[in-house]
């Protein structure tokens, strides 16, 4: 929004059903040179870009998430639709391009009809003409344009055929909009003026402040004032970021002069469809150009309007009773193995890079707090954010490929039945899968679930998925209990932990669901699963890669600041107050001296006080203040546990053998002066169990609060997971000891 002028740059919004060729069109118009923007206060993403210069037209294009109608069914659709009426940062669109798959004409015209009824200034963009042509038909632009009384253009998003015509239509529509008022309804005009007035204020405000952070509040309060004025009805201030705002969309519809009944009433919808069927029969023409006769029409409906036969053939295997299950398991197994094995060498590289950088900095700058802050606070902090990136990128790449190919919807369909038994939904499948990389994008993915209860329950159990931050911790702990000559035991243990995570989430979800279901009547349940199974196609790598890039960027933007801030806080409490400890300096290399100082400093630091303070709590788990301190530090990110242990146990070694030297120190550590070993099979098992349950991740808590619209769910999560982690860890340690396993 840098170049705000008195004359607003026209805003061209792009809407359409998922898979209607919307993104291809957007990429063509923007030259793929776009930025991803959020709907303010929410995490729903938009692509925003100026029109390419070659089109000789000034304008900004806003791509919106796919919708099939103007009636929202889930939180992401609510945001998508309200932004269509009014986007807090970009205002109302001057013209809306509605992408319509020509081969899906009768379904996709619903949105077009609703948009027309909602007084949007639209241009219908017909895509996928090639698929329809293969069936021997074509949509007549003229006939459809006459029938709908709006611009219609056939385009090919890949070759750009039809785009010049589209530009003409946009220009025409923008200029006609200025000269004549479309609506004669005086009341609507008034709304319209107020709308413009807001535009004005909004922009002035923009110029003054140069930022957009306060706009939302301003916008919504003004909007509510308006709706109060016109509807004489009090509105609570619940912005689009709360997702719970049907009312807000109603307000927007009112401002737009729309009768909500027209869009919502089932009978009216059926009526619209009947109208569409009539239109379809009029505008579909045979390729040779002749108007379709009645005979040809029926020909199209019966024989040609069939789902893709190739897709049905593949589905007969992938959705087969037995083969389907086998392929599902194979695909999931392949996904997980690639997350684990492909990512680990890159993660090692990142680890090595950052630890050498940190070493280099501390050696160059010498001793002192600044050097330590940079090396151990900042660089390690950045490293602990970036180290998860490989897994997240690989997971999103695979998810993207699965989605673009069309399989993901089938996966959701396959697991819907079992998941619905435990209070979840087939649509919980993607969030749960993402949870194995990181709970943050996973929580965001849950917003496609329309039923609030199922969505919250999905978000609730996501921290149980074995996220990538736990992996370094498990690697260390498992290495401790794995015999040197039998490495396969370690692999087996890790696999068990993953499976345990899934079983746990199902069990806990099932129990909570039972608990919630008490006293609820079957009829109240509005849980639903309606999902389009897209045609199978070869995934387009560039689209998947762009999506992955955006997801990775989102992760860094979201989790980055929190992890980094917390790393700095933890650095503070581990560095002070004894910032310059005295140690015996004889016969020690510089490196050893630094490590020794670190340990001495830590032993008298605020974090150690904290660790000692919680020691009585750690004792029943067979652990002492040192592990307590490490556990406190894991709130930045779970994997910080490993580096904290390293510092606490005076590990002096070169970085590549870090794990071995920690292990050596861990084997020798005793509790106090008792001579009793601190780390035993029992306490390690207890620690693993602790990490399986515990919700030690500030970022997850923050995102959970945001997505559920309050502290209720996150505080329940914190309480529940802390208690279960402690309880089961206690039971594990003492159970094993009772069995004679130390």
């Amino acid at each position, binding site marked *: 929004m840098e170049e705000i002028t008195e004359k607003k740059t026209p805003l061209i919004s792009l809407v359409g059903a998922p898979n209607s060729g919307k993104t291809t069109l957007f990429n063509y118009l923007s030259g793929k040179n776009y930025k991803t923007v959020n709907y303010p206060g929410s995490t729903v993403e938009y692509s925003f870009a100026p029109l390419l210069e070659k089109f000789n037209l000034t304008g900004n294009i806003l791509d919106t998430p796919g919708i*099939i*109608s103007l*009636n929202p*069914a889930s939180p992401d659709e609510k945001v998508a639709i309200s932004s269509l009426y009014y986007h807090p940062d970009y205002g109302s669109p001057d013209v809306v391009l509605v992408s319509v798959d020509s*081969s*899906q004409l*009768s*379904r996709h015209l*619903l949105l077009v009809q609703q948009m027309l009824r909602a007084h949007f200034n639209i241009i219908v963009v017909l895509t996928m003409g090639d698929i329809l042509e293969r069936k021997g038909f074509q949509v007549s632009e003229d006939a459809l344009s006459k029938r709908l009384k709006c611009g219609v253009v056939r385009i090919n998003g890949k070759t750009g055929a039809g785009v010049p015509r589209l530009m003409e239509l946009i220009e025409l529509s923008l200029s006609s909009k200025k000269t004549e008022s479309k609506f004669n309804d005086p009341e609507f005009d008034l709304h319209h003026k107020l709308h413009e007035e807001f535009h004005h204020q909004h922009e002035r405000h923009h110029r003054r402040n140069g930022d957009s952070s306060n706009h939302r509040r301003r916008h919504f309060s003004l909007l509510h004032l308006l709706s109060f004025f016109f509807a004489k009805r009090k509105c609570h201030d619940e912005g689009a970021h709360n997702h719970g705002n049907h009312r807000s969309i109603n307000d927007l519809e009112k401002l737009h002069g729309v009768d909500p009944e027209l869009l*919502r009433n*089932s*009978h009216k*919808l*059926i009526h619209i*469809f*009947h109208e569409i*069927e009539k239109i379809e029969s009029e505008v579909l023409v045979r390729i040779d150009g002749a108007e379709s006769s009645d005979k040809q029409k029926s020909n199209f409906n*019966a024989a040609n*309007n*069939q*789902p893709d036969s190739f*897709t*049905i053939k593949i*589905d*007969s295997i992938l*959705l087969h*009773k037995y083969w*389907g*299950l086998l392929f599902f398991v194979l695909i999931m197994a392949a996904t997980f193995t690639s997350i684990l094995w492909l990512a680990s060498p890159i993660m090692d590289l990142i680890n090595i890079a950052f630890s050498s950088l940190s070493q280099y900095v501390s050696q160059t700058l010498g001793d002192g707090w600044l050097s330590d802050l940079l090396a151990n606070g900042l660089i390690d902090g950045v490293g602990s954010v970036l180290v998860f990136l490989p897994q997240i990128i690989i997971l999103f790449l695979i998810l993207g490929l699965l989605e673009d190919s069309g399989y993901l*919807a089938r996966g959701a*369909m*396959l697991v*819907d*039945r*079992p998941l*619905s038994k435990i209070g979840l939904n*087939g649509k919980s499948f993607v969030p749960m899968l993402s949870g194995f990389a990181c709970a943050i994008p996973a929580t965001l993915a849950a917003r496609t679930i329309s039923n609030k209860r199922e969505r919250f329950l999905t978000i609730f159990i996501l921290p149980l998925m074995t996220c990538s931050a736990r992996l370094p911790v498990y690697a260390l702990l498992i290495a401790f209990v794995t015999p040197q000559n039998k490495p396969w035991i370690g692999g087996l243990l890790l696999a068990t932990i993953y499976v345990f995570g899934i079983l746990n989430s199902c069990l806990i979800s099932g129990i909570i669901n039972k608990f919630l279901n008490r006293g609820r009547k079957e009829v109240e349940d*509005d849980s*639903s*699963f*309606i*999902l*389009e*199974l897209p045609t199978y196609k070869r995934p387009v790598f560039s689209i998947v890669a762009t999506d992955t890039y955006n997801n990775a960027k989102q992760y860094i933007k979201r989790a980055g600041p929190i992890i980094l801030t917390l790393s700095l806080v933890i650095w503070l409490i581990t560095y002070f107050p004894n910032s310059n400890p005295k140690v015996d300096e004889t016969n020690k290399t510089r490196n050893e001296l630094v490590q020794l100082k670190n340990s001495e400093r830590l032993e008298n630091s605020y974090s150690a006080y904290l660790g000692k303070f919680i020691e009585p709590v750690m004792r029943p788990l067979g652990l002492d203040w040192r592990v307590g301190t490490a556990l406190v530090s894991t709130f930045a990110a779970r994997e910080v546990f490993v580096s904290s242990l390293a510092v606490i146990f005076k590990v002096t070694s070169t970085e590549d053998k870090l794990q071995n030297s920690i292990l050596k120190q861990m084997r020798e550590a005793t509790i106090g002066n008792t001579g009793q070993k601190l780390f035993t099979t029992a306490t390690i098992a207890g620690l693993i169990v602790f990490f399986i349950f515990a919700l030690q991740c500030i970022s997850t808590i923050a995102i959970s609060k945001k997505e559920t619209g309050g502290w209720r769910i996150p505080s329940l999560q914190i309480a529940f997971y802390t208690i279960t982690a402690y309880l089961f860890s206690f039971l594990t340690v003492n159970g094993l000891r009772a069995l004679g396993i130390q």
Partner: protein
Amino acid sequence: MKTASDLKLGENAIIVDIDTNHPSSRRLIEYGFTPGQRIELVNKSIFNDPIALSVRGSLVAIRRKEANCIKI
């Protein structure tokens, strides 16, 4: 009255009515399940639920509970 849930694999029928009292009915209509349309049961999930129906040239997976409000 028979519903879409009673269809056998590969069997097709014409929609007679949609039970608009059902909470999912509006969504079903929006996906194109309207009276007069021909639907076919193309596939079933492993546990026989949800089912995949073809309607207006596309495939839509719905639960049997939802299929029950599509009268055929």
